[in-house]
Every structure is written in structure tokens, then in C-alpha cells.
């Protein structure tokens, strides 16, 4: 990405356990609203009682049906796709883009996910394993629920489509990729972010690694006991500054830079000193050509022992711990939404930068004294010295990705 790497963020859509819409989620963050509970029966049956954060039963509101080329949601639309669609139409409304205009544009869609269109139908798996011949509906649903393709089909739009499945960095990568599409003219408009529903496979996977907390998570706290999973979706509309100028629309900010780097260390644990994260942030800052330091870092901050240690270690190598650079995690109000996390956090980062202030980390009462870079704890609220911030994600597989965002 060269010096003229620019993608303006003209719209934002979000839903997670903290609420629906940027304003609601921001208010939830400021009030420290923590609304989590064991997985409700309506999602799936499980013997595990770890608290999780959930979205509305029907994530896509019927009031938004006019966006759909068929006038209504097709049967067999999976929950992850419905969540993505709900965030997308919110973002398009926010950007002031209408359906007709959208269908005429070259629209790029880049969505991160971990659950995506994988099989959820365990009955199907069990029957198949037992040598029976189960009905093929789960296979048809699988084929129809590719999140990026599904959005194009439901909205009646055309253009590049990419699903990024890179664990917890997926949607940070999707936003970085789509920003690059805009900067290089691959498309006129882009919808980028992530979406993930709760799934039993993910929940049990995290439980098997002993990474889930019995209580609401406490990112960066000395007594942190692990993460809470959450479901959600978050999407940005990206376009070029020229296009935005032509339609005389104000925008909240822009993607200034993106970087990604691997730890090459361990399948599920971060490098203890955050080796890959340091390189990812350096890459993002270099792409941004930053002339001032960031005022805010929205960390991955899952609340696991290893993540929070690695992340703060990395930041201390890059930034002066005494400078007015505030590190927060917003996962205390949303849980870890996996493939949606980077999108959720990029949107909250931008909102804080736009308002020029950030609340502290919900769930962090006593920052771990071992950290070389201290987080802003719950209950504090500070003004931000610049309009530039970083949103970063650390993923299984050792991927680290970072976005540099600027509010106008």
C-alpha cells in the first residue's frame, strides 16, 4: 500500500451482545453494560454453562426487507449470514446509499468469519457417521450460506466477493483487504467487516483449551480467567474520497493503514513477546505514513492469560508507556465475537476517535502489574490527544493484524 492508500469509511453497522447500532453499543460501553448468560436453548443445547453474549433472536429486521432483491429473506438463510446482512443494511443506511445505486455500483464484499457456512447440523453429521442417509438440506444450506456471495445474492449486487477465515483476525483482514480494493480501484464501493453466530464447535473448542471464563471476562485484569464468546456482526462501507465528494456526504473517518504478520510460533498460543503483532503494527503504521502517534489502541484484549500478556509486551516495544496513548479492550461488553471481533472493534475505535474520548476497559479493575504497557481500567474516561487510533487482532494460527484508523 503506497502513500495514497485511502479508503473513506462512509457508513457503519454493528450488532452484538451490547446492542444494535453504533449509538446503542457505544452507550453500552460507556455504561459498562455486561449482558451475558449461558447459551440460550434457542441457539443450541450444551452442557457448558460458560456465559456468552448473544444477539436478537431474529437479527435481520423485517423493516429492512426493502433492501432485499426478493423482498424477503430466503428460507435457509443461516444465522451468520443474517447477522452480516443486518449489519450491512445498517451501514448502507448510515452511508446514505440506496438500493438502486448499490445495484448499479461495482460493490466489493469482504467478510471475515469463523463459523460462516460450516455445517451446524449435528444430527446430519451423526446420521452420516452412522452410515444412514440423512436429508441433504444441510448440504444445500452450506452451499447457500457463503457470507460474501450470500450478501451479493440477497442484495442483488455485483462485484468482487471474498470470505476471509483467518480465525480471530478475519474481519480486521477483511477491512484491510477491502480498503486496498478501494485504493486500487478494484471496486467503487466496498462492504467490509465480519460476522459470526455462536456455535457449539467453537464453544467446546475454546473450553477444551481451557480458555473460557466462568464469569464475565476481565481483559487486562490481574485476575483474568479467560474469555467469553459472543456473537455479532460489524460492517463498514468503504469508498474513495473522490466518490464521497461527488455525492457530497460527510463521513466519520477513514482507514489509513493495514498490516498483518505471523508469529510462526504456536498453533493456538501467541508469541509471548508479541513478535508478530509488533511487525503487524509496524506494517500498518508504515502504510499509513503516520505523521502523529496514535492516541488510542483498541487491543484484542480477550482476557486470557497469554493474549493479554503478549499484547501488552508488544505495545511496550513500539510505544512509550508514559505517552498519552490509551490501551483499552471492548470485549467486556461484547465477548469475543471471533470472526466479527475486528469489525466490532474497528467501529468502536472510530467512534471513540470521533468523539475524542474513550471509556476504560470494562471488566478490568486492577491492571496486571506485570504488564509493560498499562491498560485504561474500568471507570475511567479520558480525552484523546489525536484523531488516530489502532485496532488490532491476534488469531489462532499465529496471525496478527492491525488497522490504523483516523476520524475526521
Amino acid at each position, binding site marked *: 500500500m503506497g502513500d495514497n492508500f485511502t479508503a473513506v469509511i462512509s457508513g457503519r453497522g454493528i450488532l452484538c451482545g451490547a446492542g444494535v447500532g453504533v449509538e446503542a453499543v457505544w452507550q453500552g460501553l460507556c455504561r459498562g453494560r455486561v449482558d451475558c448468560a449461558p447459551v440460550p436453548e434457542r441457539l443450541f*443445547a*450444551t*452442557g*457448558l*454453562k460458560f456465559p456468552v453474549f448473544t444477539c436478537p433472536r431474529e437479527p435481520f429486521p423485517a423493516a429492512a426487507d426493502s433492501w432485499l432483491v426478493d423482498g424477503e429473506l430466503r428460507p435457509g438463510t443461516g444465522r451468520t449470514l443474517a447477522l452480516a446482512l443486518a449489519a450491512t443494511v445498517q451501514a448502507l443506511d448510515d452511508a446514505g446509499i440506496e438500493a438502486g445505486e448499490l445495484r448499479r455500483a461495482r460493490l466489493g464484499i469482504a467478510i471475515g468469519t469463523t463459523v460462516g457456512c460450516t455445517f451446524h447440523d*449435528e444430527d446430519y453429521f451423526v446420521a452420516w457417521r452412522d452410515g444412514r442417509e440423512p436429508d441433504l438440506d444441510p448440504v444445500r444450506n452450506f452451499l447457500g450460506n457463503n457470507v460474501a456471495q450470500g450478501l451479493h445474492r440477497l442484495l442483488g449486487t455485483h462485484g468482487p466477493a471474498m470470505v476471509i477465515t483467518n480465525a480471530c483476525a478475519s474481519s480486521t483482514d477483511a477491512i484491510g483487504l477491502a480498503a486496498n480494493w478501494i485504493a486500487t480501484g478494484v471496486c467503487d464501493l466496498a462492504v467490509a467487516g465480519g460476522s459470526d453466530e455462536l456455535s*457449539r*464447535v467453537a464453544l*467446546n*473448542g475454546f*473450553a*477444551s*483449551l*481451557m480458555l473460557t471464563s466462568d464469569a464475565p471476562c476481565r481483559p487486562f485484569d490481574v485476575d483474568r480467567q479467560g474469555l467469553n464468546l459472543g456473537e455479532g456482526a460489524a460492517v463498514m462501507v468503504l469508498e474513495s474520497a473522490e466518490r464521497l465528494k461527488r455525492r457530497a456526504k460527510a463521513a466519520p473517518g477513514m482507514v489509513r493503514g493495514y498490516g498483518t504478520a505471523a508469529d510462526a510460533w504456536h498453533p493456538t498460543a501467541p508469541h509471548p513477546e508479541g513478535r508478530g503483532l509488533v511487525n503487524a503494527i509496524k506494517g500498518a503504521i508504515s502504510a499509513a505514513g503516520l505523521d502523529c502517534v496514535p492516541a488510542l489502541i483498541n487491543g484484542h484484549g480477550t482476557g486470557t492469560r497469554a493474549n493479554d500478556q503478549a499484547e501488552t509486551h508488544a505495545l511496550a516495544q513500539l510505544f512509550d508507556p508514559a505517552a498519552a496513548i490509551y490501551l483499552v479492550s471492548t470485549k467486556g461488553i461484547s465477548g469475543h465475537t471471533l470472526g466479527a471481533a475486528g469489525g466490532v472493534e474497528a467501529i468502536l475505535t472510530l467512534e471513540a476517535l470521533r468523539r475524542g474520548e474513550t471509556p476504560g476497559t470494562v471488566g478490568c479493575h486492577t491492571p496486571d502489574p506485570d504488564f509493560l504497557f498499562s491498560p485504561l481500567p474500568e471507570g475511567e474516561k479520558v480525552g484523546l490527544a489525536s484523531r488516530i487510533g489502532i485496532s488490532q487482532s491476534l488469531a489462532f494460527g499465529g496471525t496478527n493484524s492491525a488497522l490504523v484508523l483516523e476520524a475526521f
Partner: protein
Amino acid sequence: MEKLKAELKEMIIRDLKLQGVEPADINDDDPLFEEGLGLDSLDAVELVVLIQKHFDVQIEDMDEGREAFA
């Protein structure tokens, strides 16, 4: 010991939501996985967590759990 076994069988049926299985259907030496009760790796994770909570024991990692079930 008999009480403990009965409690364990009830817990497995109730919390892993096994359909159409009664405690009396489970023999003490039935394998938990595959040919026995037919549990899979997702159930195994839940079982480890359930046993920790229910019997107030600590299973340090899932490898230890795997040995205990073997």
C-alpha cells in the same frame, strides 16, 4: 461407590442430553465413546467440564482428561 456411579450416569444423560437412554441401560464398563455410549469429541469436552463442576475436582488440562476417560 454405587451412589457415585448412579450419580455419574444421571449426570451424563441429563447434561449431555442423551435421548432415550436410562441410567440402567449403561453398564459400568461401557466405553463412553464410539461403540459404547456414542459420545464424540464435543461431548468429551463437556464431560470434563461437567465432572470438574459437579464433583469439585480439578482436571488440569484436556490431555489429563483424555487419560482419565481411556
